[in-house]
C-alpha cells in the first residue's frame, strides 16, 4: 500500500493510493490533481532528525573527484528543508550549478539504539523518495557540505508516497532514475551503495538514538546536471514512485 499526506479542501490528512486515485480519510476518492501534496510523513512530537549521506555511491564520488569514503559522510538537515510532490524549489539568481539528487529515503519505525546490522530492517517503517538539491556555488570547506548548500527552505522534495517496509522486498536492489523535462539524466541502482541501509542503521544507532519518523537519505548515484528555472525534475525509484518538482526563479 502507498500512503500520502495531503491537503484537500483545506484539511491536512492522510490518503492512500487506490487504482490511480487518492482515498481520503473519509473514504472519498479524489484525483491526484485535487490535492496539495505534503511530505508523506505523520507529525512527530519532536522535530524529526534527518540524516543525509554524501558520496555514498562509488560512481558519484568519482564524478565529484573524491575517493570513496572509508566511513559514512553524513550531514543533518532540518524539517524546514522538506517540501512535497509537485511543489517548486527556488534557484537563486546568482548561481551557476544547482543539481538534483535522487535518493532512497528510509523512514525509521521504532526507537533505535545500538542496533545490530542483522536486526536493522526491524527498525524501518518504510521508504520514500527524496530529491536532495544542492547548490554547488555555495560549497565551502567548513563542515562541508554546509547548510547553505544543503538545508535551504523547500530544497528537499520528499514523496509522493510512503511505502511500507513489507511492500519493498529488497531495498538494496532498486533502480533509481531522474529525468529533466522528460530526458533521462541519471540512472543507477541502490545495489551500488557503498554503505547499505543495514550498515547505516547500525552505524548511526551506535552513537545516537533514532526515533520513529526520523529519516535517512542514503545518497545519490552519478549523473547530476544543472537545473534552470522552469525545468521539471522527476526523481523516481522502482516500486516507490516518481517525485516531481519544478525549479522556480528566486
Amino acid at each position, binding site marked *: 500500500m502507498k500512503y500520502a499526506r495531503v491537503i484537500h479542501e483545506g484539511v491536512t490528512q492522510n490518503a492512500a493510493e487506490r487504482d490511480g486515485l487518492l482515498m481520503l480519510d473519509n473514504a472519498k476518492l479524489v484525483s491526484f490533481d485535487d490535492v496539495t501534496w505534503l511530505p508523506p510523513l505523520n507529525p512527530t512530537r*519532536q*522535530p524529526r*532528525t534527518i*540524516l543525509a549521506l554524501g558520496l555514498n555511491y562509488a560512481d558519484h564520488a568519482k564524478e565529484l573527484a573524491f575517493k570513496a569514503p572509508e566511513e559514512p*559522510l*553524513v*550531514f*543533518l*538537515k*532540518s*524539517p*524546514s*528543508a522538506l517540501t512535497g510532490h509537485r511543489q517548486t524549489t527556488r534557484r537563486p539568481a546568482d548561481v551557476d550549478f544547482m543539481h538534483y539528487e535522487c535518493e532512497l529515503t528510509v523512514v525509521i519505525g521504532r526507537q533505535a*539504539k545500538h542496533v545490530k546490522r542483522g536486526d536493522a530492517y526491524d527498525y524501518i517503517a518504510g521508504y520514500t523518495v527524496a530529491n536532495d538539491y544542492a547548490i554547488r556555488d*555555495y560549497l*565551502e*570547506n*567548513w*563542515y*562541508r*557540505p*554546509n*547548510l*547553505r548548500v544543503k*538545508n*535551504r*527552505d523547500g530544497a528537499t522534495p520528499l514523496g509522493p508516497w510512503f511505502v511500507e517496509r513489507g511492500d519493498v522486498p529488497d531495498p538494496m536492489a532498486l533502480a533509481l532514475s531522474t529525468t529533466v523535462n522528460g530526458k533521462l539524466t541519471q540512472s543507477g541502482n541502490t545495489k551500488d551503495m557503498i554503505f547499505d541501509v543495514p550498515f547505516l542503521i547500525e552505524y548511526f544507532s551506535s*552513537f*545516537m*538514538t*533514532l*526515533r520513529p519518523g526520523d529519516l535517512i537519505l542514503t545518497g545519490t548515484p552519478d549523473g547530476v546536471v544543472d537545473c534552470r528555472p522552469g525545468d521539471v525534475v522527476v526523481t523516481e525509484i522502482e516500486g516507490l514512485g516518481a517525485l516531481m518538482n519544478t525549479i522556480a526563479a528566486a
Partner: protein
Amino acid sequence: MSFLLMGTVYGTLLNFRGELAALGGKAHEPPYKAPPRAPVLYIKPANTWSEDGARIPVPARVHEVEVGATIGFVMKGPGDPAGYVLMNDLSIPHESLFRPPVKFKCLDGFLGVGSKMMRDEDCADPGWFVLEVRINGEPRQTVRFNDLVRAPRQLLTDVSEFMTLGAGDVLMLGCDVGRPRAKVGDTIEIRAEGLGTLTNTLVAEAA
C-alpha cells in the same frame, strides 16, 4: 523538557574571532583553502537535548568531552526572536573542521539547555553577556559576547538568507576558544547574569 525545545537547534562554528585567529594560516591551507564567507552551521538534533540538572551519558570509548558554553537565540516566529538561553554544546574533541561533526556532536544528551530565558525586549545589548564556566566548582572559562564575527541579529539575517528559523528554533551564537574539557563524574556549571545557571553532570553510559 523545556518549553523552548520544539524546533531545530543550530550551532555556529567560527563566530568568535579567536577561533579563526587560533587556526592561523591553516584556514588558508587545504582542506579549507579560505576562511568561511557564510555562517558555518551544524544541527544538534532532538536526541542531544538535556534539561538543566540532567545527567549526561558518556560512552566508555570517550575519555574527555569538550564543554561548549554558549547562548541560544530562541525564535518565537519566523525571524522573530523570543530571547536568550544558556546552552552547553558538548562535543567529542575533534581536530578537523572539514566534514560535518555528526559523530562528534550528536551523541545522546550532548546539549545542555538552560531553564531560564531572558526576553529579547529585556536585553538591550547581547554583547553584554558574560558566561562563567565552572567544573566541580573550579572556574575554568569566561566567555564574553562583545566581539562576535556576527552579533545575534546579523547572524539571524545572514542565516535567513537561505533558511527560515520558525517558532521554537534556536540559533546558538558559538563557542569561544579555551573550551575546557570534562570527564565522567564532573559537574559542569555555566552561569550568567540574567540567564541563571545551567548545571549538568557527566556519567558513564550504561553498558
